[in-house]
């Protein structure tokens, strides 16, 4: 972990407040989907999956979105009034080529609920374990900790290795895995569904979880409300550059 910014004392209330609209929207759309299920489902924004599923050591397969969710895909959710934020791209970029970023865990939940409802298929975020497994071949080796003294565990993960360029780039600018999953080692960190709760691990329920892990060049824990992890500040380490998402599903659509 290199970056944890949360105030556990306050988060449950804030989290519930933030989640209520999202859950409401999810309920509406799941309800709507029940009516629509069948020929009326809209597959326009069904995620393009990587050529091959990721197969784990126990033989189970995970179908993974080839690229991160794009600005165009995200804005379809916004147009449908299921996502709160409207995103835009800078300068001469097109929404179809740019990953959707500036997304908190709460935002990402809105999109998940919407895409699941409109396509009638269950999509979810990967777990941290799944994310690390699918990304392992394109990630740099974990650098040795800079401190090994047990008193310095709080500082040992500080990264002094050169980082991948932090500039936001169009999809396909970074590496592809053998399964055909692209940009896992890019400048966008992807939300996972794994709660980070420090010493309260396993004790907090998901809807009171103060932070989730995000997958990227280094693994980080991120406050669920964070959309733009600024660099610097009190936290030790270099935080992720951009926050986005990638869908996975356990069954082939």
């Amino acid at each position, binding site marked *: 972990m290199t970056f944890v910014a949360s105030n556990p004392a306050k988060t449950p209330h804030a989290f519930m407040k933030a989640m209520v609209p999202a859950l409401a929207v999810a309920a509406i759309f799941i309800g709507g989907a029940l009516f629509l299920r069948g020929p009326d489902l809209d597959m326009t924004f069904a995620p393009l999956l990587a050529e091959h599923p990721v197969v784990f050591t126990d033989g189970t397969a995970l179908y993974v979105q080839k690229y991160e969710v794009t600005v165009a895909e995200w804005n379809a959710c916004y147009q449908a009034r299921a996502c709160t934020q409207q995103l*835009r791209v*800078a*300068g001469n970029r097109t929404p179809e080529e740019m990953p959707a970023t500036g997304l908190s865990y709460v935002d990402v939940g809105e999109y998940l609920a919407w895409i699941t409802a409109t396509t009638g298929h269950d999509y979810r975020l990967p777990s941290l374990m799944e994310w690390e497994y699918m990304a392992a071949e394109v990630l740099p080796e974990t650098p040795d900790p*800079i*401190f090994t*003294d047990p*008193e*310095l565990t*709080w*500082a040992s993960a*500080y*990264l*002094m*290795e*050169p*980082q991948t*360029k*932090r*500039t*936001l780039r169009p999809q396909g600018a970074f590496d592809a895995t053998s399964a055909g999953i692209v940009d896992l080692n890019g400048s966008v960190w992807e939300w996972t569904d794994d709660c980070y709760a*420090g*010493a*309260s691990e396993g*004790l907090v329920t998901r809807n009171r979880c103060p932070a989730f892990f995000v997958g990227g060049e280094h693994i980080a824990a991120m406050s669920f409300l964070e959309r733009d992890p*600024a*660099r*610097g*500040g*009190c936290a*030790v*380490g*270099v935080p992720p*550059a*951009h926050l986005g998402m990638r869908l996975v599903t356990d069954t082939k659509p």
Partner: protein
Amino acid sequence: MTKQINPGLVQTSRRNVLRGSVLAGAAAMSGAAAFATPRRTATPNIPAPSARFIEAEQQAQVQAPTADLSGYTRVKQELVAPPFAPVHEQVATGGPKIIEIYMETTERLMVVDEDTGASVWALTYNGSVPGPLIICHVGDMVELTLRNPVDSMMEHNIDFHASTGALGGGGLTHVYPGEETVLRWKATKPGCFTYHCAPGGAMIPYHVTHGMNGSVMVLPREGLTDADGNALTYDSIAYIGEQDYYLPMDEFGDYKTYEVAGDDYADSLDAMRTLRPTHCVFNGAVGALTGENALKFNVGETVLMIHNQANRDSRPHLIGGHGNYVWETSFSTPPLKDVETWFVRGGTAMASMYTFEQPGVYAYVNHNLIEASLLGATAHFVVEGEWNNDLMEQVVAPQAFET
């Protein structure tokens, strides 16, 4: 120094447009007006020293007795890029010196924040923000050769707060692209001082907020001392220049880009007028002193942190440490002791001294934490050594409590 550039003789129209305070306030203002967009309110017409005044000063210089340079030894100081300091003595040996230094006024496109792609046509001394640290002792003379490269777009000069006369040398050092000048000034006051470009009128803050500033440290000949006169020495220097940028944005909030230095002038003035920096960073860019660029020290090592802020106030704090000795103003005043957060008056450089007692990571921040976290004013020090449980110990690691 008998030959001075006479700005009144320059004929080319572009130069006159760019010309600042030396020619006259009016010329500087016409420069601003030439770039201005119609909707922008006029730049206040602050009177600048008139050409006549400058001419009188030059005349007085010519008539003044020649300085007696006998007894001085000439030495060269190789300037280095921040956060490092040039080779120097803490306690002066031998007689006074004439320290020759060389600086180029380089205009270069710099990325301020990789995350957003924010960039600036930085106006620099020797290509870095801040400009290089210059170190001398009281009684020494600094002899600067200032060269403006041929491919520059703009006029530059330099105002040394450590110097005496002619607007800190600003009135005698205006150089246009392809020109150079030599200025010699005597260090009479001990302390850390800022220097910056000051071409005149609105061009002054424009150049300063585009990176054109740095520090001179004038040490007492006997070195640094505490209030009782005991010697204080340091093992290393961390030279930190805090830079506030006011980068123009388009209607969508994206940072604008420009073809060449100076193209952003009108937009920059609008952004500067808000007095709300878009970035406040150490050493030119977000992350310039963190991660792979973090500074490294050892437990027991004494570091002198020199902080330069040529434009606005700041309040550095070393998270996890202190300022054992802090000189906010000059080295003539005894240092403050055991300070938690110290003050940098806008338009100064100052120094703080600390000896590391614990290993780990320290954050050196502008303790307006909004500026530290959201605008970029953070540096990290990584310190090696043995942990001291007497100073701090985690007695109980975070755990769930009984309910």
